[in-house]
């Protein structure tokens, strides 16, 4: 039971980390895309706001 709980917790942590990673990766991709087609400027605030959600 304890092992199962700990496994579940571990899975949950992994999932959360994955979610966070995916948020950061999404930010990274979008920021680089904007940067390569022009300048970041105020768009970065939108991307930060998006990452905050």
């Amino acid at each position: 039971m304890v092992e199962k709980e700990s496994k579940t917790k571990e899975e949950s942590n992994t999932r959360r980390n994955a979610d966070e990673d995916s948020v950061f990766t999404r930010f990274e991709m979008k920021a680089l895309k904007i940067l390569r087609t022009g300048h970041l400027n105020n768009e970065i605030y939108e991307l930060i706001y998006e990452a905050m959600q």
Partner: protein
Amino acid sequence: MKKITIETENVGGLMGKSSFSFTEGMNVVRAPNAIGKTSLLHAIELLGLSNAELKDKKFYANLFTGDKISVRTSGSVKTNRTFTVTKNDLVSNGDEPIIHTSKGRLSPICFATPNNPLFNVITTGKSLRPNIENLSSADDYTKVIKELEKCYTYTNNAIQKAQPKIAQIELWERQIKDAETKIKNYQQELKKLPAIDKKKLFENIKEAEKKQSIDQQTAKNITKIKMKIDDLKQSIKEKEDEVAMYTELIKKDETEKLEKIYNKKNEELRKIKNELRNYQRKLSIEHEMQKLIEKNIENVAKYKHSNCFACGHEIEKTALGKLKAGSAQRIADLEKAIKKHEFEVDKKEEEEQEADYAWTASAAAENMKTKLLNSINGLKSTLNKQEKKLKDEQTKRNSNKQNMSKLATNKEEFKKYEQRNDLNNKIQELKMQLESMRKHHTKDLESVGNVPEMKKRQETISALIDHMSKRKEQLVEEVRNKFNSLINQVYNDLDYKDIKDVTIGKDFFIKVTKYKEGFKDLADFPLEALSTSERLTLGLILLIVTKRHYLPEFPFFVIDEVVTSYDPSRVEKIKDYLLDVADYIIITQLKSSGTTVEVIQE
């Protein structure tokens, strides 16, 4: 065999239209200084620059604003790029660049000229990190990180500016939380209290209060009656005591006996009075007799004999004397007896009076006792009535007790009702306070911006900076590792006997491991320990590796004469390798004389 022709118009020093043909493989561009060699290289560069990269490239045109330049190719690659000179930049009007992935790296990768940044590093022995960052797109990450840092600083400044207000905001937040908790607790308490029908409760209370009033009135009545009863009992007791006293008194004086005594005295008085009256009558008769005798005596004296005036009998003179003396004697006796009886009467009257008094007093006592007894009876009757009344009142009160217990229930309910009211009032008051505090909180928040939001943003920015920095390092590291592998592969392929290993260290400085002559062991050489030709060769190899790996699609690779001139034998050695890097290898050479730029295939 692939061929390409580049036609230029007004590019740099190549004024007007010019045309250059290149064949797949090595091509040597020869011209004296200031004829147009570099401009041709610029024209080649213009083929690959994206619109964004045209910024600050006005000098390529060397013309006035509004003028136009063009680079057109035919052959293996076909394009027609025309540009307008603006205030600072060139603006592309025609075709797209022939590659789309240069990302500002076209010149550093495809142009092995003396001012190539990679060559600069090799010749000066600086860190390769900026170059590797450029190749790895880490520059983009740096830009994003820089922007993120700006945002972080901006946010941090806003938070710092808001700091004095934050304490107040935090206080509001604590107070709001407290108030919310209190409201929640009160609401939970409220849930525990039953819902009460206010109208019914108040009717019940009114009714119960009536009953209470009745009870109070009954209680008062009972008290009054009890007091009356007590008074009555007291009166009865007092009267009974009096009766007892009279009874005792009557017993002592023996009324009947006294009556008899009185009667006896009265009889005696009456008898003696009769006797007195008899004597007085007799005296009166004697006095009459005496008068008669006197008269008869007068008559006899006058007539010698005479008849009695009263009876007519003849009377004698002597007899009359005797009669007179006898009468006088009788009168004296009678007067004596009368006197005696009068004295007796007075005495008997006194005695009778005394007996009368004694008897009358006793009778009065009797009478009083009777009266008292009657009074006691009356009082007892009243007492009975009062006791009955008391009993009635007590019964009435007892029957009212049920309502009284109902009153107690109502009171309990009313208490709960009051508790409910109290709780509701408290909740209302807290809600008002809460509303006010929220208003202040919102106002303060608005005045400082949303600090929690800003803090969250700051945290997010910080996390994003971390992420981007890590990713940047990963990419840089990947490129560093790839470079290390690719450079050594080229060295192995080229079979340079004296170079064992070339490594870009973690500090991004190049270290060379050579087979040192006369030593068995290997030794690390810093870049500065290499000869110029060794360094230039190393730079060229680095560029070859970079070009092959990062811009394989650009069909040109330009090598300046400076690079080749130091060690032509080494260049010769890597010639085959070069041919694999791009379709058209262009080597510039300085020509001592001439007026045109000529292209010679080797």
